């Protein structure tokens, strides 16, 4: 156990160091890419349609993969090239080294390829006396600095111009010291130009390979990949087997999406569609004065090395299979708040970086590699809408986390087992177990409040919590309310009272015949009770009677710790509790967006399809529901308008935005007369339990400060999610839920007075 608290300390220190050394450069670049993506995809007429097309092509290609591999082999061999399927990294490296030996080459010039990073081909060739030179400027910077890539597309994005200048001036000692980006680029271009002139073998990756024509698509900007092929007579392309698509025409959605999704460029400078051996003369720098011989096009050799290295097994794994659709555009990293602040050196494994790295690392290098960084995915889901092939990246992270939990032999702790009645195995860490069983804590907390709050805040308790569970002692704990929302509602007279009040509310011209089941999510029920009361009052004033039955927690808490079995149990219990209401056609209204995201999203994976569909179709986010009532003609006049200038600053919850539900809250506030400014930050950084964990506390605060800076000075701060409320409340004034402003007859945030 103490080893766990020690490793948490080490991790916190590593993250702190990276935030200091690389954080600024990573943040400026990734946030720029992310913003560029929003702008670039907005220019497309049918972005969603294009993503669907891309997804469908990948699904088909992976389904038909064995057949497509055969087709590629046939096409390329018919043209005189060779295709080698390498089982693993060692196999690929051996084959490539043999090729270099046959060619008697000393230098191989390479264009950027993550797959060659995956197999570490440079190191292997160096052992054989062959010098592999990276010619992509970013990769070359890293080669000179002896560092690993920190990003899938812009490998050196953690380095500043000043850092690169210092590196080059130190290593190469040029006549005039280098300073500007132009000078650095010109210097690198000249040096690498000489390397390219000297080489006989050019090595490239491939973004896509078409089975019908044997064409490689290379998406680049610098022109080095073109030169590596044009100036050498032997071309070795290294690519994962998953890069194959059926036909040339299938390239269309990918070509249109990859640059937009990644760096926010509609198209990069060069999309090379090479059908090797290419029909182009070899620019042979060994004979610099001889006219380039057009017949030399016939001397070209081509070798395609297709890498398996775990991919065919991923294809058979129902959960990891989706990873193979990934086109490595980097959108999931750029849109991730955690990645924006720490970069791929913390948020990445042996080779791959960002949210999808969990899938790749687990598939090609093994689970241990993913375990290192996998917790940095908080499941905020912002990457899901950014992914051009619609991969459920958070789910892959959850599954791998669950497997890592299970893989551990498990230190069984009777005390915590007793406190945390979950269905997951002993390998789950105490920290995960504590947060995964938040429901038990909340029940205990309310039952014993205010003593529990007082006790939890005491120094010795906080120390023990930090040591045992890794709950950062700097973080304020939630204050449990003695009277839960459910208790309050029952005391007030339950559904009978609500019906009477709703009847009085039916004053407008349009009367709603709806009935609402308000879901008492854990936080609304035990901690943020006021937003629940405000919701009840608002719905009643709009003429809709409410009931608040006891319904178990959604399973979000255990799921985010990778405790899938426990989450499934919760989902089943929720389904049972909701069933009679759904049959009566009552609308289920949810305040906490992360719970609605479970109902609409993950329940598909945890429950039978029909059950999940029924819950998803019958559930609404609170302000989405209010918006719907207003659209049906219910009088908006009962909503409280602004008292002062009406300026409010609204941070919608990350998952709420992914569900497309930010706009509804903004619209309702707008109708009630408020002037709304919205935040740009993708996530508040708190993300459920994440910001409580001692190893991530400082990262979470760093992200939260960026958000609170964006909202500052724009008016009263409003948030929909619990995590955002806690995070922003710890950094400034306590925010309130929009419903607390809108509820009739407030004082906002104050008591209900009923």
């Amino acid at each position, binding site marked *: 156990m103490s080893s766990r608290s020690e490793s948490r300390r080490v991790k916190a220190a590593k993250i702190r160091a990276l935030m200091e050394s690389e954080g600024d450069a990573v943040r400026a*670049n990734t946030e720029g890419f992310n913003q560029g993506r929003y702008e670039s995809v907005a*220019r*497309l007429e049918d972005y969603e349609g294009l993503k669907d097309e891309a997804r469908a092509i990948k699904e088909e290609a992976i389904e038909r993969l064995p057949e497509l591999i055969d087709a590629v082999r046939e096409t390329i061999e018919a*043209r005189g090239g060779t295709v080698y399927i390498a089982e693993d990294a060692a196999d690929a490296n051996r084959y490539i080294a043999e090729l270099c030996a046959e060619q008697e080459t000393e230098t191989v010039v390479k264009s950027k390829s993550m797959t060659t990073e995956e197999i570490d081909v440079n190191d292997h060739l160096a052992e054989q006396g062959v010098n592999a030179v990276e*010619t992509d*400027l*970013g990769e070359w*910077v890293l080669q000179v600095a002896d560092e690993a890539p920190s990003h899938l597309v*812009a490998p*050196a994005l953690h*380095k500043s*111009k*000043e850092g690169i200048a210092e590196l080059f001036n130190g290593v190469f000692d040029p006549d005039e010291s280098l300073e500007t*980006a132009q000078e*650095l*680029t010109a210097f*690198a*271009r000249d040096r*690498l*130009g000489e390397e390219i*002139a000297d080489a006989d073998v050019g090595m490239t990756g491939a973004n896509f390979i*078409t089975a*019908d*024509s044997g*064409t490689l698509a290379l998406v680049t*900007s*610098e*022109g*080095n990949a*073109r*030169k590596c092929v*044009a*100036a050498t007579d032997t071309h070795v392309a290294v690519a994962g087997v998953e890069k194959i698509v059926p*036909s*040339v*025409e299938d390239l*269309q959605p990918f070509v*249109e999406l990859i640059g937009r999704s990644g*760096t926010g460029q*509609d*198209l990069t*400078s*060069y*999309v*090379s*569609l*090479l*059908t*090797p051996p290419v*029909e*182009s*003369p070899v*620019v*042979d720098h060994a*004979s*610099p*004065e*001889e006219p*380039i011989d*057009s017949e030399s096009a016939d001397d070209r050799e081509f070798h395609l090395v297709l890498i398996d290295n775990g991919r065919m097994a991923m294809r058979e794994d129902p959960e990891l299979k989706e990873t193979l659709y990934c086109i490595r555009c980097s959108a999931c990293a750029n849109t991730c708040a955690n990645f924006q602040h720490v970069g791929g050196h913390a948020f990445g494994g042996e080779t791959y970086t960002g949210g999808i790295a969990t899938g790749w690392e687990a598939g090609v290098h093994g689970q241990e590699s993913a375990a290192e960084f996998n917790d940095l995915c908080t499941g905020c889901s912002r990457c899901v809408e950014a992914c051009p092939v619609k991969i459920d990246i958070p789910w892959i992270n959850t599954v791998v986390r669950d497997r890592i939990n299970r893989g551990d032999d498990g230190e069984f702790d009777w005390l915590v087992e007793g406190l945390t009645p979950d269905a997951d195995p002993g390998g789950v860490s105490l920290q995960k177990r504590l947060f995964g069983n938040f429901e038990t804590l909340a029940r205990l907390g309310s039952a014993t409040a205010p003593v529990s709050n007082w006790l939890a805040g005491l120094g010795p308790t906080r120390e023990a919590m930090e040591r045992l569970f890794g709950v950062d002692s700097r973080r304020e704990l939630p204050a449990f309310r003695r009277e839960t929302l459910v208790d309050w509602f029952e005391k007030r007279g339950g559904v009978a009272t609500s019906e009477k009040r709703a009847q009085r509310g039916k004053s407008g011209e349009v009367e709603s015949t709806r009935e609402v089941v308000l879901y008492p999510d854990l936080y609304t029920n035990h901690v943020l009770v006021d937003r629940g009361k405000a919701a009840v009052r608002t719905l009643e004033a709009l003429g809709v009677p409410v009931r608040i039955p006891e319904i178990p927690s959604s399973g979000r808490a255990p799921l985010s710790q990778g405790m899938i079995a426990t989450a499934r149990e919760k989902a089943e219990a929720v389904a049972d509790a909701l069933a009679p209401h759904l049959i009566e056609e009552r609308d289920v209204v949810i305040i906490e967006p992360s719970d609605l995201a479970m109902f609409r999203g993950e329940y598909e994976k945890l429950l039978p399809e029909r059950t999940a569909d029924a819950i998803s179709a019958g559930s609404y986010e609170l302000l989405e529901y209010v918006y719907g009532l207003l659209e049906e003609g219910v009088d908006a006049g009962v909503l409280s308008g602004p008292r002062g200038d009406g300026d409010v600053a609204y941070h919608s919850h990350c998952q709420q935005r992914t569900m497309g539900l930010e706009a509804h809250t903004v619209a309702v506030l707008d109708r009630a007369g408020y002037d709304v400014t919205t935040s740009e930050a993708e996530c508040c950084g708190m993300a459920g339990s994440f910001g409580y964990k001692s190893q991530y506390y400082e990262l979470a605060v760093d992200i939260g400060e960026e958000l609170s800076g964006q909202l500052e000075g724009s008016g009263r701060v409003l948030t929909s999610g619990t995590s955002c409320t806690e995070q922003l409340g710890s950094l400034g004034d306590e925010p309130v839920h929009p419903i607390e402003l809108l509820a009739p007859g407030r004082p906002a945030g104050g008591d209900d007075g009923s």
Partner: protein
Amino acid sequence: MHADQTAEAEGGSAIERFCERSREVGVPVARVSREEATDVIGELADPPVVATPLPWEGIDSPEDATTEPTPDDLERATTGVTPAVGAVADYGSVLLRSDRAGSEPTSLFVDRHIAVLDAADVVPDMGTALADHGDAFREESASIVVATGPSATADMGELVVGAHGPRGVDVVLIDDDADVGETIDGGSDE
């Protein structure tokens, strides 16, 4: 602004859009008649010039251009003139096909590339471009670079135009419907 105009992208409008998009990605377009083309190419091409044959009757590269360059000629050349086999209006891209004459290195190793393009080969969108050339890939083993703007890198801490490939690109668009007089908007500003 681009891909969403495909619906009305036929004939003239695709060419207009190509010109506009090309300029947006930093590639000026000289829209010229067949008769003017040779002169305009000559004006734009700063020596030393390397060139590959242009397939259109009566349209030629400058007389002093080297057409059978050595590797050193390529490295020394300021300007490379090659034909483009097509263009994509939505993106302002030109399609450069590799050939035995060396169009690929001629467009790549130089400081400035002049792509000569027939207006008839401009297509509205990426889907059409790939469909039109699909059989060339399958049956003729074609290799084509979709080139959009000059080479560039952001790897040295900020955006730099001109990485390994050309720093400047011009398109000479042969268009018999071109309005003589207001067609030439000059080369790239180098």
